[in-house]
């Protein structure tokens, strides 16, 4: 059972102005692990997922999903339709 888990870490990290290194220090992992997470090369443990969600003060299901997240462009377009 190795389903790909999609995440929004890269977008949220850039929005918050946090470097990979800073985020890695906050959640107690190697900066490379953050890079692998953002690229979808590594699925985090529940503990790590909850720690990352806590940094961005968001529920974990807004950060991680089995389905790909819409891009920023798609989100903006869907808002424009309303």
């Amino acid at each position, binding site marked *: 059972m190795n389903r790909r888990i999609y995440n929004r870490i890269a977008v949220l990290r850039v929005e918050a102005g946090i*470097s990979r290194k800073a985020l890695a220090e906050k959640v107690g992992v190697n900066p490379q692990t953050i890079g692998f997470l953002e690229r979808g090369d590594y699925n985090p443990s529940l503990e790590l997922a909850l720690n990352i969600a806590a940094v961005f003060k968001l529920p974990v299901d807004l950060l991680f999903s089995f389905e790909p997240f819409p891009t920023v462009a798609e989100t903006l377009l869907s808002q424009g339709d309303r």
Partner: protein
Amino acid sequence: MTYKGDPLAQKLDQVAEATGFPRLQRRMQFGNPVRFRVMPLVLLALAVAGLVLQIGRPNGFGYLVIITVWSATTIVFVLGPLNNRLGGKLDERESAIVRKGHFAGLLVAFGVAVLGTFAFALGKIGAMIGLWNIWAPETGFDWMALTFFLLTTEANVAVLAASKATPEPLQGDDDE
């Protein structure tokens, strides 16, 4: 990254840098791990060749080959993904890679040891009833060759498995 200041110390530092060892040391400490694909397979093949030599000519030459291969294996191990570069605590991803690598390595080494001892037992039985005579370790060199052969097998299979489990690092993974 050479020292600047006292001219003599600066020259000595340049000579040290020219040897390549400081660069290698920095890479071993802080660089991304090397994902080995071919080198562990080559070392495993050489270790098998060393063991065959030791079986064919029990004069210690095969043992020397295996010890040399073991020395090369330690370098591969240090440069590979199983080395704890910063000496600190491994995170969950790194720990999983180390576990995965050593599990594969120990499994293969265990399999080789079980099959080997089974072959030695069969050899003894065959020799007793006069059917066949399979080589079995007798001298100290034989036993040491076997020991380092198993260590080499474990380490190289572990490096191979860990390398396979390590994604290719991209530029900027360690950015500020």
